[in-house]
């Protein structure tokens, strides 16, 4: 059982959700990059679900921003989603870097899947 899993969920069909749980930093960022690449290779929209993440650092933001750029280049939808209660170790870095509107970050997985399907990144 992986302590800090990163799992692909493709039950939403044309939008792949990368579910990120627990603490993530420079150690797990390479795995996250692989999963994001894998999800984008499917050609549809991408949602990165941080609802169950408790900590993400700038290495994780770097991976998310690279995935976002690739999604933009190939006209794939890209959304990062959080839950109603966002862990301080996730909320703070998103807030103070001003990346909430850039990524963009939305609340709720279902809404985010719809937005990614419609290309909410533009």
């Amino acid at each position, binding site marked *: 059982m992986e302590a800090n899993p990163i799992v692909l969920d493709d039950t939403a069909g044309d939008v792949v959700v990368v579910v990120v749980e627990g603490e993530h930093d420079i*150690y797990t960022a390479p795995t996250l990059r692989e999963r994001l690449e894998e999800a984008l290779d499917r050609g549809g929209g991408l949602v990165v679900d941080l609802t169950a993440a408790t900590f993400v650092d*700038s290495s994780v933001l*770097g991976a998310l921003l690279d995935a976002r750029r690739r999604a933009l280049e190939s006209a794939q939808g890209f959304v990062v989603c959080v839950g109603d209660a966002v862990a301080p170790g996730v909320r703070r*870095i998103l807030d103070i870097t*001003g990346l909430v509107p850039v990524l963009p970050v939305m609340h709720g997985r279902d809404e985010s899947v719809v937005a990614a399907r419609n290309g909410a990144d533009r």
Partner: protein
Amino acid sequence: MSGPPPEVVIDMAARAEGVGVVRQALAGMADALAFDPAVLSDMKMAVTEACTNVVVHAYDEEAGRLEVQMLAGEEELTIVVRDHGAGIQARPTRDGPPALGLGLPLIAALSDAFELHGAAGRGTEVRMTFAYVRDADPAAAHPVTGSLGAGGRWEPGEPPA
């Protein structure tokens, strides 16, 4: 607090898997002190970024050492993150994708005080101080400067007036 203030020193290989261990040690240290949870959260982030800089930038090939010192004062915790690497200079990451360049701006925003010491070939030391209880949010006084540039790196921008 009775007795001498607690001091913790960690000396470990500067590898990616060690950064989470430092966070765990920090959480344990904070348990023993009267920390505001928001401060602990910021402290974990700032120390993670400082350790990540050591792992990614300090050493050329064989990973050297990462030293973390936690010194509990009456009203604040001082954390020193040190390496014996190449010193502060513009250089590529040892391997993997280029870093975002957001580490130091985050450390500056999340700590109550922050000093960076180092010279080429003499290693680098980042010294951060965190008050157990805050009067104000340090990120308000020292907001993260810069923004995401077209190249995907963090553009430093103008420091706040």
